Each structure stands twice: as C-alpha cells, then as structure tokens.
C-alpha cells in the first residue's frame, strides 16, 4: 500500500508485534483506544 504511494524504503517486521513480544523484547504500554461500536463489551 505504501509502495503504491511512493514510499519505497519499507521493510515489514517478520512475525509482527506478536513475534516481537514472544521473544520477550521490550514494549511500551499504549492507551486503549475508545471504540464506540463495542459499548457493553470488554475491549
């Protein structure tokens, strides 16, 4: 998607965040975004 928009120096992280966390590498905590459509559920 980015390449189609002219951003070419792009490298996807193998395994994504799941692999990063599985390897025990450091992470920082994010604020949970509000999702109005999920009111009444446990986000």
């Amino acid at each position, binding site marked *: *998607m*980015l390449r189609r*928009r*002219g*951003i*070419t*120096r*792009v*490298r*996807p*992280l*193998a*395994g*994504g*965040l*799941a*692999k*990063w*966390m599985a*390897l025990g*590498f*450091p*992470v*920082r*905590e*994010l*604020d*949970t*975004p509000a*999702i*109005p*459509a*999920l*009111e*009444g*559920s*446990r*986000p």
Partner: protein
Amino acid sequence: MDLTDSVHWLERYSAVIVPVLVVAEQIGIPLPAVPALLVVGALAAQGRVSLLLVIGAIAVTALSVDLVWHELGRRRGARVLAGLCRLTLEPDVCVRRTENLFLRHGVRALLVAKFLAWLTTVMPPLAGIFGVPRLRFVLYDLAGIVLWASLWAAIGYIFSGAIDEVVRRIGALGRSAGLAVAGILVGYVVLKILRRSLFLRRLRIARISPEDVKLKLEAGEDVVILDLRTALDVAATPYAIPDSRWISAEALDAHLSDIPRDRELILYCS
C-alpha cells in the same frame, strides 16, 4: 451422481446436508450452501421439504459452531483470528475487512455476517476477542443465521418454478455441467493461492527480523518504526515497540505527508 440425484438426496436429507454445507462455509470451505438453500426453498414450495425443520437444523448447528469460535476467541485472543483467517483465500483482506466492519457496527455486524463469505468465518471469534457477552452474541448470531437462511429459502420458495426449470436444464446436460462448474471453482481457488504465494514471496525478500530491529534500536540507528494496526488490534493488544509510531491503517492516507521518505521504514501489524 448428477444434479437430479443431488436434488433427490437434498429432498430426503436436507436437514442434515444443508447444515453441513453451512458449517463448511463457516470454516472457510467454499461449498454451495446458498444454491442448496434455494433448492430447498423450491422443494418446500412443492411440499417436499419442511422449511421449518431445515432452518431449525441450520440455526442449531451454525450457532453451536459459532459459539465454539466465540469461546475460543474469548480464551485465546487474536491468535485464533489469525489462524482462522489463514484458512480463507485472502487472509490479510479477511482480517482487515472484518475488523473494519466490527469497528463501525460492533455486534450488529453479526446480523449480516452470514451473507459475506469472508465475514462468516471470522466474526464469531472476533466477537469473543472483544468480550461480547455470550447472551448478546447468541441473540445477534441467531438472528443473523435465521435471517440469512430464511431469506435464501424464501427466494427459492418464491421462484420455485424458475429454479425447477434451471435444475431440469442443468440436469439434462448431465455430468459435463457439474465438471465444468467444479473446474471453474478449482481454477479460481488455484489462481488465488498462486497470487498469494507470489505476494508472500516478494514480502519475504523485504522482511526484517525482530532481532535485527532490536540491534538497530540498541545501536541508535536512524530508523522509523510504524505501527499500522487497526484500533481494534491496539485495543486487543495495547502494547507497542519502543519508539514506534501508531498510525492506524485506516488513517494512513491522512498521515502520508508525515511519513519520511528518505529513511528506512519498518512496519508492523498484529
């Protein structure tokens, strides 16, 4: 077995065959549940099948399977969704589309989930991941299943004459018609798999390992890390790689000018 035989089997065992086809669709196997429902509707119009029995059997079976996926979603989180989406022909599109729909409409999306092949597979675990309560899930899911089955059966019921004629004509063509349809279906699936394999091959060449990214960060290298997860993904896993910047995939176009083009970009999703 030709089409006429299939219709006879459907007439005798519709309360078993149609739920099996529906469950196959629920796990991503493209079997003709909708054509079967149309024929069942047409058979019901001739008094040869009980619609109530068939729709009841579909509701019980499909709801049971959906409840299992919902529970797996609750207990195992996003891993279930990723695994389930691998079964579909376009896993990346599958996850993204489902999440976007869920983001916009919440649990109400279950009402239309059965009408969309890529959605029926992944919506129940997604509802589980986001903790939609069981009773609420059952109500919406059951309504969606009954709506879907009733609509297609009703179309078959109303147009029973036309469907009868189509079945008769295709039946007259014999096995060659069945083989042609099977050939088109197999060709479609093979094409999708080939396209995906090519895409993944290109992606594998460009990928960077987590170990290399960690080394770059520790060495203080000038890299930009973009977190392209959807809001739903972030809500499910509210953590990020240090120094990364979250731009949700939906908002990417609005932030294109903020993304540096002269530096190496490392991207990650869920």
